[in-house]
Structure formats: C-alpha cells, structure tokens
C-alpha cells in the first residue's frame, strides 16, 4: 500500500506543478510534443509517468468510459496539434478544478463538469489549461523554484492526499494573508485523517515544499485566456461561452465569500478585467462557429449529476450547492432531481426555517415521476421534526411501498411504529 500511495503522491505533486507558471518567451511549436530537455526534467517525467499510471489504477477516476472518452475528444478538438501528447482523466472530486502536468496528463475534477453548462464552456477551461502546458509555464516554474530534487523525493501520497494538498495551495489567495495560514492549518487537520492511513511525517515536509508555489501571474493568466479562447473558437465553439464559465464561478465565489474559497481561483486569480477582455474578444472578432454542444454535454454528464451534487454536500459546500442548484433549476434540466437535492440541502443544513424549506422542495420534487424514492423518506424525516406526524407516517409508508428491498427497511418500519 505504501509503495502505491507513494507513487500516486508523486503524480499528484506533479499535477500540482501545473498550477504554477512564469512567462515564457518562446512558444512551443505546434505538433511538437513536450518532452524533457534535461536530466532533471527526465527524472520528473519518469516520476510523473509512474504517478499517472497509479492514478489510473487508484479508483479515483469517474467510472464511465463514455464520459472519459467524451472529455478527451473535446480536448483533441481544441488542441489537435497536441492530441497525441495529452491524456485527460476525469476524477471524482467535488469543487471546480482542472490541472495539467508537464508530461501531458490532465486531471479534470467532476466538480468542474458539474459547473459547466455546455461543451463550449468545458472547451474553454481545457483550452486554458492546455495553454499553460503549451507554454511550458509549470516546467519553467519548476526550474525557477529549484524543486526538482524535492519533488522526486516526495514520499507516499495518494489521490486524496494530493487533492488535499492542492486545497492547501489553492485555498488561499495570497501566501501572506491569514486565509493562507488558515488553509495550511486546515490542511494539516485534514491530513491527520489520512495520517491514520498514510503517515503524516512526509506530508508535513511536503506541505512546506509546496507552500513555495505562487499564484499564476496576471500576464500568464491573460496569455492562457487568449490562447484558450483562440483554441475554442478555432474549433467553432460559441465565443460568448468563454466568459460565461468564469462569470458563473465569480457568482459562486461572491455567494460563499471567503469562508469556502474555490480552489481554482487560488492559482488562477479572477478579475473583472479578464472577463471583460474575454467578452470583448467575443464581441469584436468575426468567428465562424457558434456551437455550444449543450445536448451532447448534458447527455454524458446528467447521469452523474446527482452523485456529484451529493459529493459537494458531503464536503459541506452548502452555499455553493445552493448557487449551483438555483442555476440548474433555471435551466430546467431534470427538475425532479434538482428539487430533491434542494430538499437535501435544507434538511442537512438544518438552519432556522430550513425544515419548512425542505418540505417545500421535496413536495415540488415529488410532482415529477423520476424523483428519487428517497425523497419520500427524507420528506418524512423533516415532517417528523416539524411534528407533522400523520404526514411523516404517510411518507414513510409510501417510501417502503416503493422500495420494499431498501437497506433501511426495518429502521423505517420502526419509525412508523413510533409514529402510530
């Protein structure tokens, strides 16, 4: 286990490197796969390749070959010149993030797909990340920071540890402010869970190393925005969608404030200017395409949406889920599922007035045929807290009628007896 964790950890660390950038004057030529140019880089490549293999075997990838293939196809569509050199992996992980290692391995978090409305928006983010890769930003950063030896020596980590470390790096907006320090503290606490499994000594050392990574500079972000935009419009996507994905994230960021910062923004500082620039580029240019690919995107992601929303709940992202649900409800896709999860949000959060709000949401959900059967059970639980015993009993009975083989059947039966 230790060896496995170690190699996964190295990969993850390698992916973290992606998030860092410096300005590079020479753009790599299209159709020229990136490759190591020194012994040091070759060592890094080897470590990343090994970690990538372990990531594939880690069980963290979304278990849906059609979805994985779909995202890879989008990547190849916007970057045909790099299609043979990049590998894209969709991992089960809440929150919005994507990152690309210098060896061409890109991870796309499921929370990112949850927040995209269509294929054009996904293409925007992939294009942005590929731009960082194309410009060798992270490698340059790696050299600048003299991290080669340290990275190679990083010991055992796993996917979750990597992701946790990412959260350390990305959570703060500045390594000098209080939020950064709080992020480090949080990460240490999180790692103490993993410590029970992986050991935490190396984690602490690694944290110290990783904290050296800075944010992307504005120039690099502008450059990645520009290249990403050019790639997506060259693939005939609707140019107006480029700004929309970032705008949606800004709304989410403003809704949750500094309590629960978005990981992606920590290394990709958002600014109004960037979004305005993307809007202007879309308005000013004459582009051949206006494809959004909404239907294709929804078809492959919709089967996972409930699970991804659930994952956000389980990370306590209540405020973010609320923003997401409001946005999704406006779009009108699968309303039964969305109202059900709105009920779940209120039930689990449990603030004043949430029980009534949960009842309202569950009842809306139950107006649709495809509502998860658990809506009846969870509606009953909330009705019970409101002392609506008759309604609670009725909803529990309905749940058992619809799910006679439920794993909690005897428990629900005992509830009904208590409510008699």
């Amino acid at each position, binding site marked *: 286990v230790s060896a496995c964790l170690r190699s996964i950890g190295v990969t993850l660390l390698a992916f973290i490197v992606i998030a860092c950038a410096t300005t590079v004057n020479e753009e790599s030529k299209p159709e020229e796969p990136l490759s190591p140019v020194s012994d040091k880089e070759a060592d890094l490549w080897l470590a990343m390749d090994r970690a990538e293999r372990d990531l594939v075997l*880690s069980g963290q990838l979304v278990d849906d070959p059609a979805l994985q293939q779909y995202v890879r196809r989008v990547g190849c569509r916007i970057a045909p010149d790099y299609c043979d050199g990049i590998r894209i992996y969709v991992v089960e992980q809440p929150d919005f993030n994507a990152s690309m290692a210098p060896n061409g391995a890109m991870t796309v978090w499921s929370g990112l797909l949850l927040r995209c409305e269509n294929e054009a928006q996904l293409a925007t983010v992939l294009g942005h990340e590929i731009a960082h890769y194309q410009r060798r930003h992270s490698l340059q950063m790696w050299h600048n920071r003299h991290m080669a030896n340290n990275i190679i020596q990083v010991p055992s980590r796993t996917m979750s540890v990597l992701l946790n470390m990412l959260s350390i790096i990305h959570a703060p907006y500045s390594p000098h402010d209080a939020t950064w320090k709080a992020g480090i503290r949080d990460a240490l606490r999180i790692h103490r869970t993993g410590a029970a499994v992986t050991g935490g000594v190396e984690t602490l050392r690694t944290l110290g190393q990783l904290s050296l990574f800075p944010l992307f500079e504005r120039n690099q972000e502008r450059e990645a925005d520009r290249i990403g935009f050019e790639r997506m419009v060259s693939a005939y996507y609707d140019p107006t969608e480029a700004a929309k994905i970032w705008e949606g994230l800004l709304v989410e960021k403003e809704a949750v404030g500094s309590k629960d910062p978005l990981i992606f923004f920590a290394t990709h500082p958002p600014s109004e200017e960037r979004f305005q620039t993307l809007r202007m580029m879309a308005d000013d240019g004459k582009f051949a395409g206006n494809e959004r690919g909404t239907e294709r995107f929804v078809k492959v992601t919709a089967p996972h949406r409930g699970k991804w929303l659930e994952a956000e709940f389980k990370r306590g992202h209540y405020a973010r889920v609320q923003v997401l649900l409001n946005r999704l409800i406006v779009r009108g896709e699968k309303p039964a599922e969305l109202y059900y999860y709105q009920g779940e949000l209120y039930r689990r959060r449990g603030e004043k007035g949430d029980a009534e709000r949960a009842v309202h949401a569950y009842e809306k959900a139950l107006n649709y045929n495809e509502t998860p059967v658990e809506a009846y059970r969870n509606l009953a639980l909330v009705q019970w807290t409101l002392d609506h015993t008759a309604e609670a009993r009725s909803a529990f009975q309905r749940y058992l009628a619809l799910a006679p083989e439920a794993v909690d059947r005897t*428990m629900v039966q005992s509830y009904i007896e208590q409510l008699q």
Partner: protein
Amino acid sequence: MKRYMAHTWVILEVLAGIAGCSAHYALVQPGTRDMDGFYRIHTPVAWSAYTQDNMEVWTINGPLLERLVFYKGVQPGAILLQDLLPVGQEVPYYKANMRAHDIIDLVLESYEMAGSTHATLQALHPTSFGHWPGFHFEFDLSIDGLAYKGLGLGAIDEEHLLHLILYIGTREHYFNQHREVIEYMFSSVDSRSEPETR
C-alpha cells in the same frame, strides 16, 4: 509482523508529536470497561487505546488497519472528527432532533469532509444500545484509495446526548477478522444508569 507493528508505533508516535496531539496509548485488558459512566462494554480481547478530542480510539493492529471509535455523550452542537475538519467552513454537527438517518448522514459527511471518499450506507436496522433504543448500521468508505468497511452502533439517550461506537477496518482482511468481536461488544453494552459513576 512484530517488525511491522514496531514501525506502526513509531509512525503513530511521531504523528502524535507533529500533530500536536497528546496521543498516549494505554492498554485495555479483556473484561468489562466503564465508558465515562454512560455505559459499560465488555471486550473479549485486549486493545490499545488513546483519546483524541471528543473521541476514544481503540485498535489492535494500529489505526491504519482498524480502529474502534467511541463517542460518549456528545452534546447537541458538537461535531464529529472535530480536529480533522476544515476550519472556517460550514461543517455538519449533531442536533438533538436527529434520527438514525440524520446521524448516519452526519457520520458519513464528517468522514468525507475529513478526506475520505465514497462513504456509503449499506445497511441500517433498529437495535438496542444497552437499554436505549438504538440503531445498527454498516457502511463503506475509502481513505486514500484504500477500501474500508465500517459498523456503527448509535443511540440518543434521555438527555439528548449522542452515543456512537464506530468500527472501521480495511475491507481486505481486517474488517472481517474482527467483525465477530465487534458485534459481540455491541451486544454487550450495558447502559443501565449507575448514578455514582456519572
């Protein structure tokens, strides 16, 4: 095995020091153990035990492989895995009006927030926790890609205090190795009040 155990202990000791916690292991001998006056439990085997925050952890082969966690008399408003959850973020906490399903959601969400994944309920049924009406549940989760299985026994007492015993072991080998012992221990809980010890 002996060598591995020694290695594990070294890691745990170092961790304890670095994490700033005062995890000192004590031996729990086979027999009946009083749990802070809330209830008594009988163990047929010896355990190593330490206390962290509001939980008591028992283990035989090390918490990397399996652990038995006791939450005793948790007050409304308290959070589980307190020291492992992110600071400044909304975290789930125990509420006095929770039912078995809500408490299991609380447990699984707490594990996920602390870094585990795929925490999923597999079975739930009513049972007794000593003389309190309680619930017994099974769940799966993954920590750092390693699959675990878990058992839980919970109850809310007359004073709305939550009592929870959680057992987690690697799906391969350790969970099944001790399952029978754990189920016996669950059934041995005696919560008849003994005012002199409360």
